[in-house]
């Protein structure tokens, strides 16, 4: 910690472990490093989805990828707020928020506005907005615990919640990110890996249509590397799509039985 007893010290502080400098996750050229959770570079965390997590909502889903846990609720289609102009297309309204205990340090500010707008952009291309004119569908996400790759998990979970709410979709939207750590590409990074990353690439796509709805890149990339990372993500997206589809099927068959 820099500046222990400075005048601006907060009234409370988190007793973080006594580490002057964190050891780097891996050293350059060290080919034997392993990921903190023991996964292979191109291996995703096991994904768990469940629909119908929130009864008060029209549709909802819970997703858990390792330590990343999110709930998404969908409300509507319902009346548009704020004296909006007539529109023969439906509107999509997205919001992402974090619990105060989502991050290791309590109440660490994360950019919720950016996540909300990214969620909107990732989903809007997959929703048949013309099926609910004049009305709004609200997609609200709450990140219970942030364990890395939060945004991709929120996006996948949101598309499942939309399906659960019976909103017409062209296809589910699945999202996967990769981090660039030195010479390696690691898929579905955890928070620790994200904090060391040299760059990241996130794809959201509709797996059955094989279309990219959103793509963001940060860091320095060559075209060949982008190609490699995209292929990696797209493969993972199509696998994730199967997991999500089977979750929906299970929910549907369970409701038929009861």
């Amino acid at each position, binding site marked *: 910690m820099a500046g222990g*007893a400075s005048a601006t010290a907060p009234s409370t502080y988190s*007793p973080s472990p006594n580490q002057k400098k964190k050891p780097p996750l891996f050293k350059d050229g060290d080919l034997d490093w392993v990921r903190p959770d023991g996964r292979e570079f191109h291996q995703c965390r096991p994904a768990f989805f469940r629909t119908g997590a929130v009864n*008060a909502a029209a549709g909802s889903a819970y997703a858990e990828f390792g330590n990343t846990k999110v709930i998404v*609720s969908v409300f509507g289609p319902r009346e548009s707020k704020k004296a909006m102009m007539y529109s023969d297309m439906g509107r999509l309204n997205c919001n992402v928020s974090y*619990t105060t205990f989502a*991050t*290791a340090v309590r109440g660490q500010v994360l950019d919720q506005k950016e996540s909300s707008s990214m969620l909107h952009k990732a989903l809007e291309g997959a929703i048949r907005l013309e099926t609910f004119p004049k009305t709004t569908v*609200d997609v*609200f996400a709450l990140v219970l615990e942030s364990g890395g790759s939060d945004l991709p998990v929120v996006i996948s979970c949101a598309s499942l919640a939309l399906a659960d709410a019976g909103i017409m979709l062209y296809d589910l939207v699945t999202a996967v990110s990769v981090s660039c750590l030195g010479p390696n590409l690691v898929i579905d990074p955890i928070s620790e890996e994200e904090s060391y990353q040299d760059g990241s690439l996130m794809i959201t796509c509709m797996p059955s249509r094989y279309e990219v709805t959103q793509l963001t890149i940060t860091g320095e990339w060559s075209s060949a590397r982008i190609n490699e990372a995209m292929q990696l993500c797209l493969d993972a997206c199509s696998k994730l799509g199967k997991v999500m589809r089977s979750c929906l099927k299970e929910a549907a068959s369970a409701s038929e039985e009861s």
Partner: protein
Amino acid sequence: MGTPNAVGDWSSEMEVSAFRRLFPLRYYERHLSESIRPDARPLKRARDTIVSLGAVASSDGSALAKIGSTTMLAAIKMEVMTPSVDSPDEGSVAVEFHMPPICSPVVRPGRPAEVAPVTSKQLFDCLLSSGMIDLKELSLIKGKAAWMAYLDIYCLDADGALFDAALLSAVAAFSHLRIPVVSLNDEGRMVMVSKELEGEKLDKEPVDKERRKLSLKSIPFSLTCILHKNYILADPTFEEESIMETFITVVLNSSGQLVSLYKSGGPVLAHTSAIQECVALTRQRMKELEEIIDEAISTMEID
């Protein structure tokens, strides 16, 4: 069109679900006269209740409580503070109750629900006045350092009786709380003793020997009831709360003493007998909840 007779005539022809939406009060009263509620509960029974501990890995103590479909997630994070001059040997507790937009169609982002700050205050008052937590146990070094327990409760699904579920999750989170082991560093700040070093010889003596539990005394439990005409409905759902507007919330501690009693106005004026009945119901409910918490603790300890 709105006369009672007209309603009576329609009721025979209308579909049940349509009737429920158009004339909710009549729909309910019809049920209540048969001593049953639309969800098949007797009037004075609470919904199925589940408590599970340790739901949030990144916190020092956490719990998930579910009453029917009302779901609450509570988590405690411990931070170090300088105790106040008035009470140098006491720690402190901060309670915040959140209603994120996911929990209910009536909450919208950017406009926090009105009930949230009110419930925060009620929870804080209940937890402290019940005498459950001895604030002296949160002290580290007298006058220098003490623990601040930040309790955040998130409503994940709002279906009535929010206060009861929130209090239950808060109590459960405190029973799951393990205070981290810390030691004083050179700069006079507390630092966490990392897991690898625990049990080994340290150059600095930790303030505590091991991860400590709080000894919880006289735990508060609550039950909310609706008063409607002569009926008393325990543990209302969201639908019931929105139709019938008089609630009584009774909070008792595990020694059977009354911690608090809220009745926030409403069209029904309660007789003392009704209040006594509510207290009696809470006493019954307290036994159920105590068992549920004990069971949650014992399953956790087996794991």
